[in-house]
């Protein structure tokens, strides 16, 4: 290429550098979107199949749900849930979390609870092995919640300790302890086996 002068040559080199940088950036994005994602969704074929079937069916998908449930983990993003289960059948918002629900069959749904960052905090289904309603609700409780809110979901404690700053719940297997600060905000939640 012939340049009119040195100034034009420098201008050309600058443009070339910008183009190269943009191309490199696009390559990285494509790698992240396709290669990276494919790594993360590298699920067993039966799961991929169950997911595909679950998403394809509507209203009655008990078998697929049973297969997929073990892969629904606390900490997953809402997008990851959607990639597995598809669009939820219903959504509900609460003060400290949201719930997206998938119909599985008659009187049978998967409820996925998401925190304010849309990360999974709890997955509830008819197959959950909780011995009572309290244990089902316990995973929804987190530090930062008010005492009133916790009372509303967990009900009255068996014991109020430390001048009401510690609630203790018990069932046959566990003792559950919620500690509150001076402003009655939950600061610590413990679940200990008896």
């Amino acid at each position, binding site marked *: 290429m012939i340049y009119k002068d040195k100034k034009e040559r420098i201008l050309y080199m600058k443009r070339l550098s910008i183009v190269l940088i943009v191309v490199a950036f696009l390559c990285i994005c494509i790698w992240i979107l396709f290669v990276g994602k494919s790594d993360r969704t590298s699920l067993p074929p039966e799961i991929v199949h169950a997911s595909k079937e679950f998403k394809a069916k509507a*209203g009655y998908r008990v078998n697929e749900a049973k297969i997929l449930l073990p892969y629904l983990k606390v900490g997953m993003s809402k997008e990851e849930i959607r990639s597995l289960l598809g669009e939820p059948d219903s959504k509900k918002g609460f003060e400290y979390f949201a719930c997206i629900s998938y119909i599985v069959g008659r009187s049978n749904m998967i409820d996925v609870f998401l925190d304010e960052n849309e990360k999974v905090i709890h997955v509830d289904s008819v197959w959950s092995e909780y011995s009572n309603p309290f244990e089902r609700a316990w995973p929804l409780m987190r530090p930062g919640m008010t005492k009133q809110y916790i009372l509303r979901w967990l009900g009255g404690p068996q014991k109020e300790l430390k001048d009401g700053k510690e609630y203790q719940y018990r069932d046959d297997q566990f003792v559950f302890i919620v500690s509150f600060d001076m402003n009655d905000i939950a600061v610590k939640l413990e679940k200990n086996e008896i």
Partner: protein
Amino acid sequence: MAKIIWGHSTPVRRRNKGVIFLLFAAALIVGALGPKRALACDVTDVDLWIGDTSSLAQEGNPFDVFKCPDCYFGWYVEWDADPGYGDFNGEIWLAGVLISTFFADSSKEWKGGGTHSVPGYMSPGPKTVQAWMRRAGGEWCPSNTRTLVVTEIEDVTAGAKHATETLYRAQDYLDEPSERQTLTQGVTAVLSEVITPDCFYWVPDCDEYLPTICPDDGCGATFSAKDHDLYSIGAGCGNSSKTMSIALEGINIYTYISSEDEMTETYNIFLNENFDQKRESTTLPGHKQCYYVDNSDDSLTSPNYDNMSEIGWINIYAAIYGDTDATVKFNASGIKLYDSSQEHNKLEFNTEYNIVDIGGSIYVEGISTGTTTLSATIETQDGYTTTDQLKIKVIPLDLVAVDPAPSSDQHEICHKEKLLIRVNNNDSDNDGTVDLLDFELVGGDPDLAHIILEKPLGAEASDISGSITVIFPANLNAFCYPEKTGGIEAPDSYSFSDLPFDIYLEGKSASSDILKTSVAAEIYFDSGVKGHDEIRYTVIKVDIESPKGSLDAVKNPEASWLSSSSRFDFQGVISMAPRYRPYVLGINGDIKPTPSLSYLWTLDAAAGTLTDDTTATPDHTAPATEGQGMLTLKAMIDTMDTGLKDERKVKIYKDHLERDKTNFETGGSCDVGWKVTTFNVDPQPTMIKWNCHGSTNHACDGSGNGSSSGLSSEITSWDKDTFDVLPINWSNVQAVLDRGDVVAYYAGSSLQHSATCISSTTTWGANNEPVTGTETWKWYLATPQDWWNNAGINNPPLPDCTKIIVYNKP
């Protein structure tokens, strides 16, 4: 001389002694008469006069003259003689002593005069005065003689006291000089002669300033003085004098009140009717150790020291000037006096006490309300008295317990059976707000204690220094009104005009022990004396902590919902019901203070029975049939019922189904976030999704978590009736249905739905609405046929149901 006398034999010595004696006697005679006076006179008619002064002598005073030693007297002499030759010499002799000489020119008047003092050494009594005259070189010629009586002061007296002693008089108004009147006392000088010499004098003299003795030239006079002091008085004449003292004693009882106001203003003290000394009295039934009021005995120190800030303190000053025999007597009413010794011995009225023993102050205790005059009378050793007075007002301070009231005001700190306040954690006005958090109870809260801070009887605003304070501890709230309005912070102050003042006390937390919550009023009078009254309460916490809710509550707390078993804590199930969770009530109470108070639980028989009913956690045994009744926790002191109690109405259901249906009702959501709305629970508990099988299992025996993929083994173990011939003969199905039975719907072998029969026709459960399409997730009533026809078949993509199994409740 000794040799003359003693150097010879005895006869010679006697002769010599006689000669010497005669010579000595002759010398004395010559010396006494004078050699000149024994000779013939050439001056005639020598006339001598004496007087108090020279002029009086010259005037021819015919009388004897009275003079004290060292006092001057006048003399005057006239004489005759042959004219012509020689001047004159004169001499004046007093009692044989030449006291004066003079010279007269013969060419002038033949007379002479002058003054001279009586020699200081001269003894009292009449003395002869005589003049001797002569011409120069001539013979001495005597005058007539005159008598000068030498006089001395032998004593001074006042009252019964004599020279060198002190007469102790008493004078009023030691503290008020302007009010004093002049006090007079007759004084007498006792002379050796009846005539008072002109040179007699008193000290002090009779001038215009007190003290005075008037007249100051007579031996009988009057001493006058006004101020309290020790006065020295004396009578003198020449060099003769006598002195004594007169003391004007006085007494002053004084406080901060100025002297001129002490009979118009009052010294204010406290009616000492509290219990600082802890003098034990008889303890009546229902009382803790009672005490006598502090002012009911004659001691400030026994068995314990009284609070001395509640006792008046008065200064006593006596000006006694050495009168150690002076005594003091007190008199008053409505008060008691104590000395300032360490023992604070009581001082009786109208009893003489040595003023020295009383010291500088006395303590005054109020024993009856009103005004009195305290008088202190000092009596000198000579029997004279004077009194000072102080007006004293005894003022009560009374904090009256109106409701609850003790048996008497004197039992306001010990009547443990009556003086009770409950921790106000009930809901007296049934508005759903616990009274402790409710600050407007229409019609008043019956759980408040009512007291009145009375206006101190007989007091005036000016009697009080500052304000009147009411103090109450942190475990009480106080209000101006029974509706709990007009909150009062402790300590609270009231001005005199605010009184009487009603105060309503609310128990906030329990006392540490019986009668350990003290509500006190304090007042400081302008005297600095403090008044204090108190009422002692026991704040009792009697609280059923479990169950927290009550069947009849207008508002049940959210804590009354037991999430783990999904029921209210006041709900039980009869003993015959299948059980998974305890169907008995979990009962737990809290009574404070412990161990002074004890538990007594009662339960209406319809709701079961209790064992260990005197513990915090009695055991409940459910009845065999459904029923409801009152669970009551009573606070007991020993075997005495305090009357303070907490109550819960509880219900024992005939089965879990009945309880769940009551709690969850029909038509409401059972989807995630659904709420329990029954029994006025507020805030309403929030639930996670319940499905049909979860509700069926729970209605069976209270088990499960509300969500299940199938029926519990308890249910599937029951006898069953299967209906799998299509179409279903609903009459046959209905024929086997009974309350409590479970109807399960299957598609092939796959369980699709279940619900619990509430009768032979109708089922109830979660997500039981018979709808086609999307499920509504509601608690619902439906006949099996309705559900089958609407939701069970022809409802794609859900599979069609093909079978019904009815599990028959045993």
